[in-house]
């Protein structure tokens, strides 16, 4: 038996055993209708096991450990989402007790959209994220150019600082920032959030733009210059086609990160008008009517990264280090 066949058989056995366990527990312990979820998961796992045995001794380039991993990953990601969906669609007054939604009512989504609190919070978030992203990208592009292209002294150190800033616990800075804003008299204003938000966006934008800049075919710029392009022509003929898509993808990612920031929002905004959405959902959930509306708002907020991923999936995968080109 070759090692790969043995490994496939082990993967099959593991997924069959897992499926068997999940199925038995579901049938014996879980009441309906959630029982069906358990049984479905068990069937998928056991089918994987069966397929693994069938294909173990073939030359197909599949890894059954990878398939099992994807299945486990999917369960652990989708179940919380499903739970959020169930909570969001539970009719007013009722409490969700099962994983599968019983009685779907969309009123919570209406509520979330029409709720003044959530609307103002979403506006704050989007506005702050937008301004912080624009400023950060405008600064990050030249910075990344210098880090990649120019023989700047200590550029490794600078790049190290950028990465360090990326890993910094933002929550620790929220307190000092708040004190500062209070003494400046700007505490509570929407735009006052932009400057602290740059702590999140600027290092991220620089880090992503460095990746963008590393991929640019720079001799092409030399060629375009040697061909006699003027500055505007260099911008239009070189920068737009070769830098544009990468920078846009980086900006979208930065925007999503800024939209999702919770720590700075919660720490720096005292009350409703300037509290961004993620912070509102946690801190001010009592001001919003019911957990359904909070869950619904959370699900709607999820649309932003989803849209971003749908717009430029390849670029974003590449930027995040998953290059498969």
């Amino acid at each position, binding site marked *: 038996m070759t090692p790969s066949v043995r490994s496939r058989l082990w993967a099959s056995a593991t997924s069959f055993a897992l499926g068997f366990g999940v199925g038995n527990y579901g049938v014996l312990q879980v009441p309906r209708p959630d029982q069906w979820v358990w049984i479905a998961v068990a069937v998928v796992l056991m089918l994987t096991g069966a397929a693994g045995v069938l294909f173990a001794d073939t030359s197909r380039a599949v890894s059954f450990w990878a398939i099992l991993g994807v299945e486990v990953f999917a369960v652990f990601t989708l179940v919380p989402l499903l739970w959020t969906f169930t909570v969001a669609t539970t009719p007013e007054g009722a409490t969700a007790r099962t994983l599968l939604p019983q009685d779907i009512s969309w009123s919570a989504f209406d509520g979330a959209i029409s709720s003044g609190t959530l609307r103002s919070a979403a506006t704050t978030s989007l506005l702050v994220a937008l301004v912080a992203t624009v400023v950060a990208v405008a600064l990050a592009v030249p910075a990344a150019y210098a880090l990649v292209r120019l023989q700047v002294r200590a550029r490794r150190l600078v790049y190290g600082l950028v990465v360090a800033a990326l890993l910094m616990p933002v929550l620790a800075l929220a307190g000092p920032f708040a004190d500062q804003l209070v003494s400046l008299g700007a505490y509570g204003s929407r735009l006052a959030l932009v400057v602290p938000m740059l702590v999140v966006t600027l290092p991220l934008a620089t880090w992503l733009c460095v990746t963008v800049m590393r991929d640019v*075919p720079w*001799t*092409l710029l*030399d*060629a375009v*210059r*040697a*061909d*006699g*392009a*003027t500055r505007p*022509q260099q911008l239009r*003929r070189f920068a737009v*086609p070769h830098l544009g898509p990468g920078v846009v993808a980086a900006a979208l990612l930065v925007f999503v990160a800024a939209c999702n920031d919770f720590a700075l929002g919660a720490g720096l905004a005292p009350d409703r008008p300037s509290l961004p959405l993620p912070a509102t959902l946690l801190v001010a959930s009592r001001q919003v009517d019911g957990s359904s509306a909070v869950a619904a708002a959370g699900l709607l907020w999820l649309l932003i990264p989803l849209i971003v991923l749908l717009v430029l999936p390849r670029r974003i995968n590449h930027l995040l280090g998953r290059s498969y080109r």
Partner: protein
Amino acid sequence: MTSIELRHLTTDGPGERPLLDDITLTVPSGSTLAITGPAGAGKSRLLRTIVGLEEQTSGDVLIDDIVVNAVDPRGRDVSMVFEDYALHPHLDVFDNLAFSSVLRKGVDKDAVSDRIHEVAELLALTDLLDLRPADLDEPQRQRVALGRSLVRDATVYLFDAPFTAQSERVRAHVRSVTMQWQAEASRTSIFTTNHVEEALSTADRVAVMHQGFIHQVGTPRELYDQPANMFVAGFLGSPPMNLVPAIPMGQQLVMPLATMLIDDDLAERIGERSVVVAGIRPEHCLDATGPGGPAVSDRVEFTTRIDDIEWRGSSQFAYLGYDIEPEIEAVMGEVEELLEFDLFQSFLVAQLPAESALRPGMSIRVVVPRQRIHVFDPETGENLTLPR
């Protein structure tokens, strides 16, 4: 139509040695100069400085007798082919070829289109005009890069290793159509190559460059027959010139395999030097084994054993080994270290006609015409046999 001149062009490098070392060159209008040298000689740097992409530390670049040091690449209007092709990945071959021509205002689009089709025909790109660079193979991409430059109207044309990716078969053809196209429009061109034969066969004049320094400029024949120094002698030609240590003793020069008589003139130039280097081209080693050998009156001859034979159809190489004393070997090692180039070997290569039935282990009598042997100073590399 345009001449180019470089005066004492120097670019400081990060280390002690400059990247470009006091380069003075003239390329007359309508002529072709080949710059050849080993990798890392500074050839690309020199071209990039002429285009205006890199700045020199001192010295002048003149285009048509006008100093253009402060002029940007657009103002210099020099066309360049880059070693890594620098094609636009998002444009198809036609647009890539057109790119540099349409950057300037007031271009006659129809004329450009005609020229693109003409150039594409020459470089066998006609069927590929709608493809993107990613769909092409390496030689095709290189021809697109070359074509982009040929299509354009510029003052001077620089080609950085423009034929390297072409297969041996196509190479000569691509080279000749390129050079014909340039000659028809009497364009001034400079190309770099590390292929010695390419430089000798293609250009009007050749410059040998190494370590940022131009060792010699001249017509291919001048360089080959009268190399100014040991580096030029050892670099030009394949197989390269045999460089063997020689010890002057009175009227004689003692080499590992042979002894050569020297005349008063050469003896005077050798002077007090205790060791010199003798240079013998492989094709000047004639096989005189057996009766009816070549009739060379003024000759150096020796008999030795053949270590190995390399038969290559049109000719064959005989490798004749010899031993050198350790002290002399040390001197030669130092020279090689200084030059960062392997010049010396412990065998002599003789290029012989393919017909003669030679075998390793056989004894061979070799005759070399005496006036074909060059003598060099081992330290400065200066060619002592050249008439002053």
